[in-house]
């Protein structure tokens, strides 16, 4: 949005035009007691040079991912981003558009979004994907509402190993709707959800599982899907680390009815927490209950291919309170970044990155487990994250690592009180071998 300044003379002209003698008269509908009588307490104006120096100093206080070795994951991942992503996304045609309501002037944007949807379908093994939602957590909450619309059932079964903040968002969405969210415990040995402990009923709208789960452990999706489908419940799969799809079988092949997740790993920088990218894909037969915006391929009267927003008749700006969902927007720029990233990597490149993540994580996990006082908490297979149990206080371990410019992991006590002695470690391809070696040396010195 542009800041439009105006002079005292222009203000006087505008007041005259609308028939107000003073600015006070314009604001008379605001009760007296709410009006500010003295000037705002603001610091004195600074020169441009002073402002730049001020913000440079402020920015220098941040700990950037370029300066530290980041072993943090838990829903936001530090991956290498090829330069081509930033170059292409900075083109004005992509960077400045908002909503492609007019297909006749937005074919490039629409086609890029269509390609994004196609890539998401291929990766997840699903039939339709929308043009994205805000982030992974709101995508999950929308999936829950969609399951309720499709099944007219009121109970949701969610694994406790789903990202704790995603679970919070689901609670926020469902609290006032009278939906009952029941949590399913993880197995304390493996860290995974055992299919036999999944007990949906004829009242269950959906069973929700994350894989790899919050502990990095890969779930047996096929077995859990079967449990859900036995009673006619939908199976929702959450993915917070979509790089894993370079190696793991797509959830669509394992019985998922809805796949949601976070797409930040696909070429989108961490940026201190956003913006990110909500992935949403489902079966074609459910498309009319899918939230968000969808771009479709169409043909004009001369048979030429084109792209248009489709099913918009069910969106909120047209259907108001009867709309499928409150969401009628998308993270367009981030979705296009993901499309560029995935096109750049290609199937083999994505597989390579996924393998590097898995191998580096396996290497560090093995090395940590060899240090006295440390062991892996769970025995289940993991991708690029794993939980470490420490006999030393977790805060002390992480402090020692931080002194060596290493962000060593996420303490789990805040989310799982029973894992007070544990922290979550993530290793991506962006971690140099030297940092892994320093990590191990620090633990050894404890």
């Amino acid at each position, binding site marked *: 949005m542009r800041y439009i300044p105006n002079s005292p003379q222009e203000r006087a002209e505008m007041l005259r035009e609308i028939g107000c003698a003073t600015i006070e008269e314009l604001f008379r509908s605001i009760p007296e007691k709410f009006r500010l009588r003295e000037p705002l307490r603001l610091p004195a104006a600074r020169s441009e040079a002073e402002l730049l120096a001020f913000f440079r100093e402020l920015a220098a206080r941040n700990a950037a991912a370029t300066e530290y070795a980041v072993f943090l994951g838990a829903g936001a991942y530090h991956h290498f981003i090829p330069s081509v992503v930033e170059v292409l996304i900075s083109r004005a045609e992509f960077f400045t558009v908002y909503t492609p309501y007019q297909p006749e002037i937005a074919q490039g944007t629409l086609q890029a979004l269509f390609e994004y949807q196609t890539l998401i379908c291929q990766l997840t093994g699903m039939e339709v994907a929308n043009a994205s939602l805000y982030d992974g957590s709101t995508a999950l909450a929308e999936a829950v509402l969609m399951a309720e619309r499709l099944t007219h059932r009121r109970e949701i079964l969610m694994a406790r190993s789903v990202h704790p903040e995603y679970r919070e968002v689901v609670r926020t969405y469902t609290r006032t709707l009278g939906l009952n969210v029941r949590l399913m415990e993880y197995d304390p040995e493996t860290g995974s959800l055992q299919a036999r402990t999944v007990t949906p009923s004829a009242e269950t709208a959906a069973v929700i599982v994350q894989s790899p789960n919050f502990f990095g452990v890969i779930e047996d999706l096929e077995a859990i899907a079967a449990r859900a489908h036995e009673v006619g419940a939908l199976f929702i799969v959450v993915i917070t680390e979509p790089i894993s799809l370079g190696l793991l079988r797509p959830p669509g092949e394992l019985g998922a009815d809805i796949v949601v997740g976070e797409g930040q790993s696909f070429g989108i920088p961490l940026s201190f927490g956003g913006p990110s990218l909500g992935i949403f894909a489902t079966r074609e037969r459910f498309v*009319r209950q899918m939230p968000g915006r969808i771009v479709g391929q169409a043909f004009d009267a001369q048979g030429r291919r084109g792209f248009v927003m489709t099913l918009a*008749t*069910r969106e909120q700006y*047209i*259907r108001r309170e*009867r709309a499928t969902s409150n969401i009628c927007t998308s993270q367009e720029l981030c979705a296009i970044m993901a499309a560029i990233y995935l096109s750049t990597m290609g199937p083999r490149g994505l597989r390579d990155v996924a393998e590097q993540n898995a191998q580096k994580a396996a290497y560090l996990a093995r090395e940590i487990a060899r240090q006295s006082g440390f062991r892996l908490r769970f025995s289940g297979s993991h991708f690029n994250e794993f939980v470490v149990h420490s006999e030393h206080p977790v805060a002390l371990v992480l402090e020692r690592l931080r002194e060596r410019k290493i962000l060593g992991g996420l303490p789990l006590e805040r989310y799982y009180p029973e894992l007070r002695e544990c922290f979550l470690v993530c290793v991506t391809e962006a971690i140099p071998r030297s940092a892994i070696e320093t990590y191990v040396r620090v633990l050894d010195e404890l």
Partner: protein
Amino acid sequence: MRMATYPEDCLYTREHEWIRVEDDVGVIGITDYAQEALGDIVYVELPSVGDHFSQGEPFGNVESVKAVSELYMPVSGEVVEINEDLAESPQLVNEDPYGDGWMVKITLSDPTELETLMSASEYEEYVKEERQKEK
């Protein structure tokens, strides 16, 4: 323009649904005027057999290339059958609104509600007024 038709054996609502009662069962659809106003119909969302609706309550919706519109129950009743063919062939509503394009069959819970509906000639007059308003 082709003249829209309104069969004598149906009763009509102000929301442009029709109902034809045969042996205690009411067959319900949308009128010729409605299908023409909506344009090409691409999807019809219907309730499940056994669902109960009061008079005037929405029981589904019809999606055309222009809009998604609610369907309203002409009288109270329980759904005993839905037109499964509309899932594959929603254009039947455009082609044959009073025949193959029917939507649901219901058992009436209060047949006296039929008295609140319009006859074919009353509806024709009502549509004329609606068209007048459009102009």
